[in-house]
């Protein structure tokens, strides 16, 4: 059986569903497939809490949103992309409103907005503190009305099919039955989300294993800015569950073990009882996470069985604000930390949260490979530069999901079908089938469980490529990862069943993660400066002369790596100093 569509979208999160709807709306003749390793409404977009930014208020402007984004990203953003992004974000959020998203409202019925870290104006739309959940379910339910959208739920994509430099489909297997199939397409859009799981302590769900990044990388597409990994300053210890920035936006304080609002010592402004935009707790995430590390070095953090923590204090907000604006925060604290934020302090520490880097795309979501598009966290356009501002990611999914969908639809309407039956492609499918059936499913013996390799990879990344890194720590990490690649090849797989084999999935995810981890470490090693989320102790200053440039990492056919540094697009905002709280 050959499965074939005009456009195949890998991933059913916010970006994937938005792209699917865009394809269906731009050309109803096209057949679209959404292939996702989990049911779409389980995608990680569901966990996003705080909100989605778009300038709609009369006191706000697109330029201000753009400037906040660019300075927040330490001038590594593609400014043309940012301009398109801030312009289209309000339209996209309004469209979602029309599709039924239950945005929180002002008394007069208008959509409400809240402040957010690094934003100069209140422009973050929110649906209480379950914004991503509502956004994803709205998109998913809306997508159900398009008959041309076919879904492959719980299908795992293992490989991109490439014919003469052009992407023409994917190989995937259905978890339920284990059958392995080629799904051919004129255009493929990757919307597989981020890769937080390469680190041990992350807010990211189990499924965020960087599959799409690795798929593209292995197929020959470049990954961009992989050294920029965002730590969120407030995760719950042990679980890594996120306490949304909205908690600080509503007026929460970060205090150290002495009850002192320590951010004032890190050039983030002076404390005031009410939240002040772009100041103190509403500074950008990179700076807050870095302040935590310094604070820990000074011995002013609290020691717990799950590491050092500081406290997030919401008590002064009162139960009414907490229950109407932050009900999920309270729910999460109560069930996972046995702490009631109305009366108690919430222990928090920085946690890996978001991948600024990803598959290199242009402003239309197109990658340098013909027929391959990407959008969402898997992609890097880049509007996030060296540090994403909270609440920019959800609108990014929508804006660039829609753009990628439209671009892919246009391409697919004009393109003749790739050589889907061509011998070269058939051979790739057979190779992949053999790899899955013999090398993985049929693997006998083996020394250690894959979880051992995974745990060591995660520890390696934390040690070598954490909030602060150095040439030395990164070089060590690179060596260890190299060794882990070897160990993965001989790790043990006990499950030989074809039916819902989650161990096979875990193995494939691990191999994707190892590739992604290597790109992170190598990109970080070669960027000899400190910028945004990338802080090198051996190169503590920003270096615009050498590195006002994106990093592109390619994999050559022989497996070797190659880097390029194309300069960042600057339209109207020349690089300046990042100033917060002043």
């Amino acid at each position, binding site marked *: 059986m050959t499965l074939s569509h005009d456009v195949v979208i890998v991933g059913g999160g916010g970006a994937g569903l938005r792209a699917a709807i865009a394809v269906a709306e731009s050309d109803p003749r096209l057949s679209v497939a959404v292939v996702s390793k989990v049911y779409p409404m389980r995608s990680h977009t569901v966990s996003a809490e705080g909100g989605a930014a778009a300038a709609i208020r009369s006191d706000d402007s697109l330029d201000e949103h753009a400037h906040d984004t660019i300075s927040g990203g330490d001038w590594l953003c593609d400014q043309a992309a940012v301009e398109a992004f801030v312009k289209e974000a309000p339209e996209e959020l309004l469209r979602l409103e029309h599709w039924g998203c239950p945005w929180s409202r002002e008394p007069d019925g208008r959509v409400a907005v809240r402040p957010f870290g690094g934003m100069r104006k209140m422009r973050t739309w929110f649906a209480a503190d379950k914004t991503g959940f509502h956004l994803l379910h709205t998109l998913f339910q809306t997508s159900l009305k398009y008959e041309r959208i*076919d*879904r*492959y739920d719980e299908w795992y994509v293992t490989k991109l099919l490439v014919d003469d430099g052009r992407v023409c489909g994917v190989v995937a297997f*259905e978890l*339920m*039955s284990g059958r392995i199939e080629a799904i051919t397409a004129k255009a493929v859009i990757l919307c597989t989300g981020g890769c937080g799981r390469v680190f041990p302590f992350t807010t990211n769900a189990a499924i965020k294993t960087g599959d799409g990044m690795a798929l593209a990388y292995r197929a020959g597409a470049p990954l961009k800015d992989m050294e920029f990994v965002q730590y969120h300053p407030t995760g719950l210890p042990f679980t890594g569950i996120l306490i949304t920035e909205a908690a600080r936006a509503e007026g929460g304080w970060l205090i150290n073990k002495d009850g002192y609002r320590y951010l004032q010592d890190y050039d983030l402004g002076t404390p005031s009882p009410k939240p002040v935009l772009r100041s103190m707790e509403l500074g950008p995430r990179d700076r807050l996470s870095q302040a935590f590390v310094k604070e820990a070095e000074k011995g002013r953090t609290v020691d717990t069985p799950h590491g050092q923590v500081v406290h997030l204090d919401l008590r002064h907000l009162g139960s009414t604000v907490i229950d109407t604006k932050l009900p999920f925060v309270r729910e999460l604290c109560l069930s996972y930390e046995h702490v009631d934020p109305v009366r108690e302090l919430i222990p928090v520490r920085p946690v890996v949260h978001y991948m600024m880097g990803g598959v290199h795309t242009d402003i239309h979501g197109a990658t340098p490979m013909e027929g391959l598009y990407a959008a969402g966290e898997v992609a890097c356009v880049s509007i996030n530069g060296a540090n994403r501002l909270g609440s920019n990611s959800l609108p990014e999914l929508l804006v660039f999901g829609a753009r990628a969908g439209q671009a892919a639809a246009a391409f697919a309407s004009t393109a003749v079908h790739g050589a889907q039956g061509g011998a070269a492609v058939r051979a790739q499918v057979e190779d992949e089938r053999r790899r899955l059936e013999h090398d993985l499913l049929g693997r006998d013996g083996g020394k250690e469980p894959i979880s051992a390799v995974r745990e060591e990879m995660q520890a390696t990344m934390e040690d070598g490529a954490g909030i602060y890194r150095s040439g030395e720590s990164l070089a060590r990490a690179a060596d260890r990862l190299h060794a882990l690649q070897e160990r993965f090849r001989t790790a043990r797989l006990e499950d030989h069943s074809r039916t819902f084999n989650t161990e096979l999935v875990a193995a494939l995810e691990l191999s994707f993660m190892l590739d992604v981890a290597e790109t992170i470490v190598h990109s970080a090693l070669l960027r000899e400066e400190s910028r945004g989320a990338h802080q090198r102790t051996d190169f503590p200053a920003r270096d615009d002369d050498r590195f006002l440039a994106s990093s592109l990492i390619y994999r050559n056919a022989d497996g070797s790596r190659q880097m390029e540094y194309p300069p960042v697009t600057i339209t109207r905002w020349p690089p300046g100093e990042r100033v917060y709280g002043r």
Partner: protein
Amino acid sequence: MTGKAQYTQFHPRWYRPRVPVLWWLRRRSYLLFVLRELSSVFVAWFVVFLLLLVYAVAQGPQDYQRFLDWSAAPGIILLNAVALSFVVIHSVTWLFMLSPHAMAVRLRGRRLPAAAIGAGNLVAWVLVSAIVLFLVLG
């Protein structure tokens, strides 16, 4: 769902657990549900009982007395005692568990909590019972 629906619909290897015939013995809440549904039988019995009473009264004083005697027979008392307990199950579940959740009563834009509706129901029940007592006992 291209080709998928047909493929998976009658999958031979899925295990389909069977529901036991006495499924409602499996959980307390299911048992309560079945008892609640059975209360309807006793509601119907009460209608019969009531009609017999009305008929007797319509026939005259002797028939009324005969009805009173008949209703004091141990069998009938037992039946009515069982019936009353079921009817109480019915009233309690209906007034305090079911209807408060089935109704969305709004007062000044806010939905009344279920407990408030239950309380309202209690008041209604007390009132109606008082009227009944008054009418019957004079």
